[in-house]
């Protein structure tokens, strides 16, 4: 324990630097995934048959292990940051799309009917009613994607992408437990922190969208 703390103290720049790299990689992949998946979900709702196709493909693609995706990205982009980013983006895209899409589709149909009935255009209904109400579901997908991306980013170390995985690998190679933990603990901590904060955000959004419940008449 003491050795661990000493290590962190002596190498704080290194650890922070790697953590920063790690976060950058995760955040970029998640953000890119969001940027692609969110419009995909909207398109999927506007064009139902296309949406079903997307969903079917996404469900299958979800099954492919992340390390395999990483491996398959290498022949395309070489090693380093690029294939890691590609793998991360693809893996983030899937849960965000699926959650956003299902979230939109599972909205109470009477809300859509009321919106249509008062004369909202499709776009107005989407922007004012459907998207705000499906936000908790979308954030749920974002949460899954973000947490997973921390994990995948640790793998980036294998292909020269940097991040906290570097410390873990060094620790394994040098049989240095301290170094190993110096990579593993921050990585785990990051994942937990992201999960807890996004879960809190999701709960807050659910409260704000106030599911309609019947009080006693």
């Amino acid at each position, binding site marked *: 324990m003491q050795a661990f703390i000493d290590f962190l103290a002596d190498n704080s720049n290194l650890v922070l630097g790697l953590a920063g790299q790690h976060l950058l990689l995760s955040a970029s992949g998640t953000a890119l995934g969001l940027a692609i998946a969110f419009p995909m979900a909207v398109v999927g709702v506007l064009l139902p048959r296309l949406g079903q196709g997307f969903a079917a493909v996404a469900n299958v693609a979800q099954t492919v292990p992340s390390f395999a995706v990483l491996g398959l990205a290498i022949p395309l982009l070489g090693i380093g940051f690029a294939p890691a980013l590609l793998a991360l983006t693809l893996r983030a895209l899937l849960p965000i799309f699926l959650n956003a899409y299902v979230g939109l589709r599972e909205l109470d149909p009477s809300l859509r009917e009321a919106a249509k009935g008062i004369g909202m255009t499709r776009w*107005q209904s989407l922007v004012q009613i459907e998207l705000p109400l499906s936000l908790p579901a979308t954030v749920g997908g974002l949460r899954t994607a973000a947490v997973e991306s921390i994990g995948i980013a640790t793998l980036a170390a294998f292909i020269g992408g940097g991040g906290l995985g570097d410390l873990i690998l060094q620790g394994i190679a040098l049989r240095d437990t301290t170094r190993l933990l110096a990579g593993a603990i921050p990585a785990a901590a990051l994942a937990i922190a992201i999960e807890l904060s996004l879960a809190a955000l999701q709960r807050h959004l659910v409260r704000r969208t106030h599911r309609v419940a019947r*009080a006693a008449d």
Partner: protein
Amino acid sequence: MPDALHLDAVSKSYGGAPVVSDVTFSVGAGELCAIVGPSGCGKTTTLKMINRIIEPSAGRIYVEGEDAAAIDPVQLRRRIGYVIQQVGLFPHMSVEDNVAAVLRITGHPRAQRLARAHAMLGLVGLPPLEYARRRPSALSGGQQQRVGVARALAGDPDLILMDEPFAAVDPVVRKQLQEELRRIQAETRKTIVFVTHDLPEAFSLANRIVVLREGRVVQAGTPEELLFAPASPFVSAYLAESRELLGLRFMKAREFARMGDAEGPTVPAEASVLDVVQALARRSVGQQLSPVVIGDEAGGPRWVLEPPDLVRAIVGAVAPPR
């Protein structure tokens, strides 16, 4: 002056299976028209064709003389109020924002929208100071539907469509809401088309009733016409269960009375047979049935309804259809 609403041979089929066939009827300005009929008769489909939530397969619908098919559906719907059974209040918006929703999409500035929303909330019996900022989830079912009605009124449409608006609410609250609707309609003089499966509701609210069966109009007319001049055995049978109560309410007591005066409870000249029965029921238990005096002011014409004639009136209402 064209009718507020006119349907001309309107039909709807889904893949060859007809749901609504050749429906024709009119609704005058300021009238409340109820569309009734057994389950599956196409009444909701017919209603939804008026604001083109569902597009007709054939026929024409004229809203204030204009062919609805020629108007942009979004613009059409902004001119027509729409209240649905499940209410459909937007849960992430406050009550006042819900009511103001129509005005927001037609570009009214915020202050104006909210002022109008508050006015509408007052109209439906929800004091704005108390209710405007609340969320729909904090309201009871009856209150939510009042907000739904307020939302439909916000854009000041001349025509309002209601699809079984009070069906999801418990009977006591339903009665209150029906009263409110009657009052609101009297105040605002809107034209209302109202789908319901509750016959007493239709008869108590509507000036005009359209009876549908398997997608076709069986009879369209005033409540009295339906009760006392049914167009077919189906109409009589359909009204049969509710006939007694409805009949008593629509039959004028003085039609069974003779001119004269007597000692007994008094009811107004226009009172129905039901009013007479209720007046008698209000007296204390144990008293014998007495004649009932019908008349308004001292000096005006008076009639007396003797117990035997009252019984005849009731039997007349309850008798099975010929």
